[in-house]
């Protein structure tokens, strides 16, 4: 480890970190935005969920690097290529959790809302979605952590990210760069993870602090 390398390359490190954060966070957000309507439909209409979940399982099997490459003819060696490929990946992780979270809302709760005069839309927005928040965020956490880590692969097709430090470090036989890349990616992922935990706590104040309800469905998201 050569600490003196860091001050001289501060702006490079900062720029790569920013690029990597962008390439990791945007796909998770896009994945969430696409997952919500699809997940709501799949939870609502029983016939809609098997085909959607099957498509998601197959898409999940497609390697990110292969998807980067498949998108090159359409989008070139750009950020867009990486963001779209990782969005597909994030979608596959988040969508099953949206469905599972909404399905896990207990029937008596739904009936109570209806009895209080809530229409379907109001019930969805004010009762069902808030109750599904922990499970949805569990999926989002997996999505964001994975895509931050996977974004480094974008460097293989020349899209700038912290992966640059790995490749440059290997070519120059200079482990310092690789250490820095590894540490920054892990720190970046953990920071995003913590932010999501904070958001979940803010959105679900009724839950006890040491709460692990998202846990069981985390597995299903891993499984998807």
């Amino acid at each position, binding site marked *: 480890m050569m600490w003196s390398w860091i001050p001289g390359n501060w702006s490079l490190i900062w720029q790569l970190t920013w690029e990597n954060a962008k390439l990791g966070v945007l796909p998770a957000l896009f994945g969430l935005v696409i997952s919500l309507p699809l997940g709501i439909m799949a939870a609502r209409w029983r016939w809609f969920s098997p085909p959607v979940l099957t498509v998601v399982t197959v898409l999940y099997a497609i390697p990110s690097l292969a998807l980067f490459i*498949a998108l090159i003819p359409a989008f070139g060696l750009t950020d867009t290529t990486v963001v779209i490929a990782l969005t597909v990946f994030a979608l596959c992780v988040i969508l099953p959790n949206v469905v599972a979270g909404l399905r896990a809302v207990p029937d008596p709760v739904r009936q109570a809302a209806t009895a209080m005069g809530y229409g379907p839309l109001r019930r969805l927005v004010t009762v069902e979605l808030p109750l599904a928040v922990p499970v949805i965020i569990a999926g989002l956490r997996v999505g964001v*952590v994975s895509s931050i880590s996977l974004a480094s*692969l974008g460097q293989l097709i020349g899209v700038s990210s912290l992966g640059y430090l790995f490749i440059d470090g290997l070519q120059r036989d200079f482990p310092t760069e690789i250490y820095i890349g590894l540490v920054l990616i892990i720190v970046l992922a953990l920071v995003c993870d913590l932010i999501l935990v904070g958001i979940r706590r803010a959105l679900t104040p009724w839950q006890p602090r040491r709460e692990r309800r998202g846990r069981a469905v985390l597995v299903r998201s891993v499984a998807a």
Partner: protein
Amino acid sequence: MSFFSWAWDWVTESANWHGSGSIPQQTLAHLGYSFLPLLIAALIAIPAGIAIGHTGRGALFVVNVANSWRAIPTLGLLTLLAVFLGFSVLTWLLPLVVLAIPPILVNAYEGVAGVEPDVKDAAKGMGMTPWQQVTRVEAPIALPLILVGLRTSAIFVVATATIAAYIGLGGLGRFIIDGLASNQYGPVAGGSLLVVVLAVLVLALFAGLSRLLVPAGLRAQAKLGRTE
């Protein structure tokens, strides 16, 4: 030209099917690079997951660490080991084992931890030893989830074994990395298509395995659960 026409032209070119470094050879090498890490990860993570699920000890560790573990970039680990160890077996093996452990561990743990308390009590009440409880009751009930974990890891490993080519090894990644380096899109597209085909085959293989291995009673229950 689109991805598929590039990939198709390259895959159907008969010259790519013969000689050293041909498609069949690299596919076999790729399967080799994938199988060994998966096996090692399974040997570590399945017993560990079952033990943690059964005893409840270390559960917090699994829940908290599994997600952060995914943050470790395989490419970073691979290049780091390449700098220190050169092209040894560990250089490609270790990153892939690290990649494969979390899904297997989490699913094995959740599968066993999620067994109904009534079922566990019944097993105990019948006079089963703890070993029998685990091997005859808890593990079989957890089997569908254990298979899901193995499937996820297998797909990850098949997808990621591609980057072993980055440090000069064989496998389907050879076509991708060499093609990228020489600006030839044909082998890049063809290699990627073959990786996708392998990954989908792995998916199908596990669908078949779960039909074969999961006890009929559990499958019937899962069906009931779905229609309730």
